[in-house]
């Protein structure tokens, strides 16, 4: 019920923002900016870069919001903008080059039996590749569907499903040990 309320408020703010109401736009972006920042921080691993990318994303949203036809699609649409900004930053950053490889192999931890056993799920999550964690965040924290995550990350739906499957399997195996 709470989620439905939030969705309705969000759509109402989108519609008002599209009509040019500045206070509605500020409220809308204020409600989302922390989530964008945390996504970017997780994606980029640097606080300053996450702030910059989030700011660029917010400006991108405010500039293009009038083009959004379906207010209910705002979360997916805005995360797509954010993901594009993150990818731009990663591409420009040589030392993060491995992050832009979309054909990333499964983390070694998934197949390597010598990985130290650790019951702490947070530490286990940290062992996962950024591409896997990105999918987990969108699925578990943002409540995005498989189809929406595929659009946001520009992946095949099958890839999203397999990343979720392997992450669950990896964590379940380690926790059950």
């Amino acid at each position: 019920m709470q989620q439905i309320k939030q969705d309705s408020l969000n759509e109402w703010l989108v519609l008002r923002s599209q009509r040019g109401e500045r206070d509605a736009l500020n409220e809308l972006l204020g409600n989302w900016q922390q989530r964008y920042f945390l996504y970017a921080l997780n994606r980029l691993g640097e606080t300053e870069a996450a702030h910059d990318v989030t700011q660029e994303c917010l400006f991108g949203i405010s500039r293009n919001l009038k083009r959004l036809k379906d207010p209910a699609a705002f979360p997916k649409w805005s995360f797509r903008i954010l993901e594009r900004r993150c990818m731009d930053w990663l591409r420009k950053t040589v030392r993060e080059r491995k992050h832009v490889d979309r054909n990333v192999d499964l983390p070694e931890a998934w197949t390597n039996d010598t990985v130290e056993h650790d019951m702490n799920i947070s530490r286990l999550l940290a062992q996962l590749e950024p591409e896997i964690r990105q999918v987990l965040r969108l699925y578990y924290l943002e409540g995005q569907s498989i189809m929406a995550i595929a659009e946001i990350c520009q992946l095949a739906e099958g890839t999203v499903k397999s990343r979720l499957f392997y992450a669950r399997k990896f964590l379940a195996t380690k926790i059950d040990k």
Partner: protein
Amino acid sequence: MSNIDEKIRQALTEEDKRAIEATGTMRVCLT
């Protein structure tokens, strides 16, 4: 939601809380 799903969600939420504590809240003014 299965047990593992709930544990993942909780761990990610805790991770965010720690990140906010470490970095502060994000505030951007567009106007």
